[in-house]
């Protein structure tokens, strides 16, 4: 699951860059190469996971960090037990409150 979240994180980054490029460049078009890379990345991700990612993206970033034990997406505290289970890989890295994917930097 950690690898899949990593893939989603890379996809999210590419999609952010695409949006930024549309803002910065007056023609409003992102680079074709960038779009191709996004398509390729999306093809590698399982359909159900991608559907969850797309649904969450409607309300902001789908993959968020945990800061001070709090989900940055919803600003609610994640119980330490849940965090431990996420870190040791026994449960999905998902916020128990908002369902966003959590990108936890263990280091």
């Amino acid at each position, binding site marked *: 699951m950690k690898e899949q979240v990593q893939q989603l994180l890379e996809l999210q980054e*590419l999609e*952010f860059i695409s*949006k930024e490029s549309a803002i*910065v*460049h007056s023609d409003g078009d992102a680079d074709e190469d960038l779009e191709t890379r996004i398509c390729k990345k999306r093809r590698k991700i399982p359909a159900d996971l991608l559907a969850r990612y797309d649904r969450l993206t*409607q309300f*902001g*970033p789908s993959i968020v960090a945990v800061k001070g034990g709090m989900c940055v997406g919803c600003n609610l505290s994640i119980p330490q037990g849940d965090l431990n289970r996420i870190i040791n890989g026994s449960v999905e890295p998902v916020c128990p409150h908002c369902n966003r994917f959590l990108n936890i930097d263990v280091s």
Partner: protein
Amino acid sequence: MATANPVNLKAFITPDRVILGLETEDRSAALERLIEPLIAGDIVVDKAQFLEDLERREAEYTTMTDNGIAIPHARSQAVRRLGISVGLVSGKGIQFDPESDTRCHLLFCIAVPAFAPTSHMPLLQAVAKFGRDTKRVEKILVSKTQAVAARYLASYKS
């Protein structure tokens, strides 16, 4: 993703965030100079890390526009809060995008905290809109002091 709302540049740009007469032709050197006011303002905590993140972002897709404005920005763990610095380049400009012949004369460097990856979108939109207005760009490029440049930018309503 939420729609970006107009932003008032006044909230972000102060005279100490403006660098006049940037004299370099090298992109990395220019970026390093642009990071300095952000470090002084306690926005960026690790210069090397942020510089690396900026270069990585540039490698993905250039942030330079056709009219010689560059808006380097990056999400980074080295950033504590959203911030921006401005560089006015003197001389013949910077070869910012190796694939373009256009020289860059105005730079806006945006520091984006990794934990708020889309927080800069309204700011980016405002700065990009400013950059598209050639008259305003010409006017800011002849600013004599940091305060004048900051005031001019701050008065801009996107």
